[in-house]
């Protein structure tokens, strides 16, 4: 019975968020769960972290992804694989209309507003913008966790704060 349950649990899809990690051949996914405190009869947030196999580098830091347990563990650490990127981070599409959104407004509305006021060349153009990641490791240091600087090395690590 318990074996059946374990097998069934392996087929579950989990929804989690990709978090920065130092590991190069795996992505770290945080799955938010609620845990019942039996004394208080209250639920508290509990985070589970899974290291996932992602050979094609589908997901970046911050993406909401679906993960599933591998039939067999790949390494001691890597137990799951990335199935699908559901919501890419910072590039949200409205599920009802299928239009791109920035915060609570449609991007086209924002563009239209600028057009009415008189668009300037200095403004940001979504159509010309390269896909995410062109500043990664240059000016945007978010793909790896930052830490407090603890020693003076010969090479300066940008992730040491």
């Amino acid at each position, binding site marked *: 019975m318990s074996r059946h349950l374990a097998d069934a649990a392996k087929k579950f899809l989990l929804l989690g968020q990709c978090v*920065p990690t130092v590991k190069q051949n795996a992505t770290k996914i945080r799955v938010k769960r609620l845990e019942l405190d039996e004394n208080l009869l209250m639920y508290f947030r509990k985070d589970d972290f899974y290291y996932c196999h992602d050979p094609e580098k589908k997901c970046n830091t*911050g993406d909401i992804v679906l993960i599933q347990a591998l039939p067999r563990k790949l390494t001691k650490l890597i137990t799951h694989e990335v199935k699908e990127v559901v919501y890419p*981070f*910072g*590039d*949200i599409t409205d599920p009802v209309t299928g239009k791109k959104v*920035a*915060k609570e407004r449609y991007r086209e509305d924002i563009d239209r*507003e*600028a057009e009415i*006021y*008189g*668009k*300037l060349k*200095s*403004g*940001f153009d*979504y159509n010309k*913008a*390269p*896909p*995410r990641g*062109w*500043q990664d490791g240059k*000016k*945007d*240091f*978010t793909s790896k*966790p*930052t*830490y*407090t*600087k*603890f*020693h*003076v090395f010969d090479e300066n690590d*940008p*992730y040491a*704060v």
Partner: protein
Amino acid sequence: MLRRATSLFIPNRGVNQLVKPLVNIKWTRPQAIPAYNPEKSGDLEGLPNIPDNSLGKEYSLCEEIKDAPESVKKIFSVGHLGKKEYNALVKQELMDRVKRHEYDERTAETRIAKLTGQIRCLQDTMEKFPRNAKAKKAVQEIIDKRKKLLKYLRQYDYKKFEWLLERLNIEYKAHPESYHKLTRKESLRKLTEMHCDSIRQSKLSDYRNLLESQQGPFLRQKLDALKFIRNEQMDLQLPITVTEQDINKVEEQLKEWKIKDELKEQVKKKKKNILLD
């Protein structure tokens, strides 16, 4: 009585500390950098190049000043009007880089640009007057605010976030897991861990090299043996267990090994040459 007995067997702490540490690790504490420093705040650029004789922000809109004599222009120039007017020009310069339209003042990118202008001006004052406590507090607050705005912008519009970093020449680093005071013990622990890791890696790579160097001779031996077995089986008209494919496979493996070995030796030679030089 008991204490005397235990002290005989167990050396006390003072004696232990006299023993030399097994691992020779030198730790240098990183120098404390004030938070307003461009290095910490992530500003890769100083103040924009604005000449002293450029007109103040409001006065430059005036019609009469365009054909005014030099002396009048000098009176209304930034150099004469003072730092406040100069800072206004700095802010305007940075905001002009990212403006969507002419009346754009409250969107995220212009707000960040404006804050960046303020930060850079205040950083300049801090460089001149490092004991100005009011300015110090102000910069720190503005830097934190800008970081917060950048964090939000990253969440809802990643492409714009990256474009803005490029435009304003700012570095963005995520918050570390915890901000805490650096301790000697923590640093030494991390350094020791790194030292152990490097030892482990070097031992593993040595062992790997050893095994790989043995691979070639073994493959040659195997090839010879396989060929010999096949020939014998053919001669004695026994059922043939070694196929051509097996032999080809081993030959290919040997070829790959030879290529790898050559590359390795080239790298070794290069290293030697560098050392000799």
